[in-house]
């Protein structure tokens, strides 16, 4: 009992120490602590324009003059919310902010989206629609480019037709021989899994669950900003336990966003 008491007291003391340390550390190291917002100075053009909202359709209501400092609060798509010394807040465009100077006196380095970024893309997120063996298809994809010509791609798909409902997923390696072309063709090889459910109005039968092998060919095209357009054809082989494997043709097209 007495021994327990001193142990408990030691534990309590340690807890106090931890509690006492935490607020000290929070300021210095805690990544969740609020960082001071960056401050920029209006320089080469005589002024930048503030709008009431993050879009060119929102009214222009304030001019920040040369030499004035603004605090950059946040970013929404292509627009930045800023606040000046007087406390006026508004939204400035990416083009406008890119003309201001950072505290070090350099032009603010903002990424400009264009063909160069398309060639350097790392991640792609996309939505495609099409046809999977006669059934309308909805497909979502996530791709990660790990080498200049190679990406690994994951897709999740559903194709529900008049006869059956197919849910399938695939993983594939995508080879892009000419990543610098604006219309960049690619080949893909991979595997997956499919679950096929026959529709209720037909004969009741259990769900089928098969492995898939796939080969495909397609092309990505850069449209604008972060957008790409994709067209793809895939040939799937479903490894069934019947005498013959099923062969399924798929074509699809859609949009992707890259990072």
């Amino acid at each position, binding site marked *: 009992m007495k021994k327990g008491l001193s142990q408990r007291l030691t534990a309590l003391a340690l807890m106090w120490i931890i509690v006492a340390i935490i607020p000290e550390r929070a300021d210095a190291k805690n990544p969740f602590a609020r960082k*001071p917002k960056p401050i920029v100075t209006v320089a080469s053009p005589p002024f930048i324009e503030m709008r009431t909202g993050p879009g060119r359709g*929102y009214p222009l209501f304030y001019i920040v003059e040369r030499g004035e400092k603004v605090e950059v609060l946040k970013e929404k798509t292509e627009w930045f919310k800023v606040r000046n010394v007087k406390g006026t807040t508004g939204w400035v465009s990416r083009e406008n902010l890119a003309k201001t100077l950072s505290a070090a006196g350099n032009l603010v380095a903002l990424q400009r989206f264009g063909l160069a970024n398309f060639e350097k893309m790392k991640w792609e997120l996309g939505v495609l629609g099409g046809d999977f063996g006669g059934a309308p298809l909805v497909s979502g994809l996530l791709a990660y480019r790990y080498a200049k010509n190679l990406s690994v791609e994951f897709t999740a798909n559903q194709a529900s037709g008049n006869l059956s*409902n197919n849910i399938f997923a695939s993983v594939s390696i995508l080879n892009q021989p000419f990543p610098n072309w604006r219309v960049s063709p690619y080949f893909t090889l991979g595997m997956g899994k499919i679950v096929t459910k026959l529709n209720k109005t037909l004969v009741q039968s259990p769900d089928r669950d098969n492995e898939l092998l796939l080969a495909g060919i397609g092309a990505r095209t850069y449209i604008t900003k972060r957008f790409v357009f994709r067209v793809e054809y895939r040939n799937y082989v479903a490894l069934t336990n019947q005498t013959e494997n099923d062969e399924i043709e798929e074509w699809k097209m859609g949009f992707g966003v890259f990072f």
Partner: protein
Amino acid sequence: MEDGFWSLFLRRCLAGSCIRVISLLTGLALTSVFLFSSGVSANPGSMDKERFTVLDPEIVREDLEESDIGKNDFEFGIYGGLLSVEDFGVNTVIGAALTYHVTEDFFFVAQYGQSPTEATSYELLSLGSPLLNDDERDLSYYNINIGYRILPGEAFVGSGRAFNVALYFILGAGNTEFGGDSRFTINAGVGYQFLALDWLSLKLECRDHIFDVDLLAETKTAHNLEFSLGMSVFF
């Protein structure tokens, strides 16, 4: 328990269990030191001084990186409203939506919603066996859409308050689980977004879920209209 704290303490010290007692005392001493030091920094005067030196942009940050600026391109929201399912009545629908704003004009939005449905007039009039069981009567859907914002502008509430608003169109595809089967669904709609705050928006949306139904005699394409009110936050 008849021993007092100090006699226990002394006895412990003399009895050789000193190490634990010393560690206890060290712990207490350190605690008081930390409590004291945090007490000093809690002093408003010195805190202000500290804050100002830390906040001086000349010292803290030199160049501005885009990653230093917090992005708010995602939006998550919930909605509720009415969904009319052709032949199966008008019922409440609830759902959730995740939006990614790519540019000021375009966005992607994924939605999931659920709604119960009612017996058809055929089932009610014929007094026959129901077409669907309870599970099949519940409808759920998901869809992925591309959205386009048009007519952005301001709405004035009273004479001194202006809010950002926009009208948007969406078009996409998905699947509807209804009547025991999964149905490929085309989805189109129009909505009105009202930004109460930079990060909080209210939405009024009207959309059409178009899918084929084969539950009554022949297969037909059904237009199922949904009217909903939602709320979302940007992050």
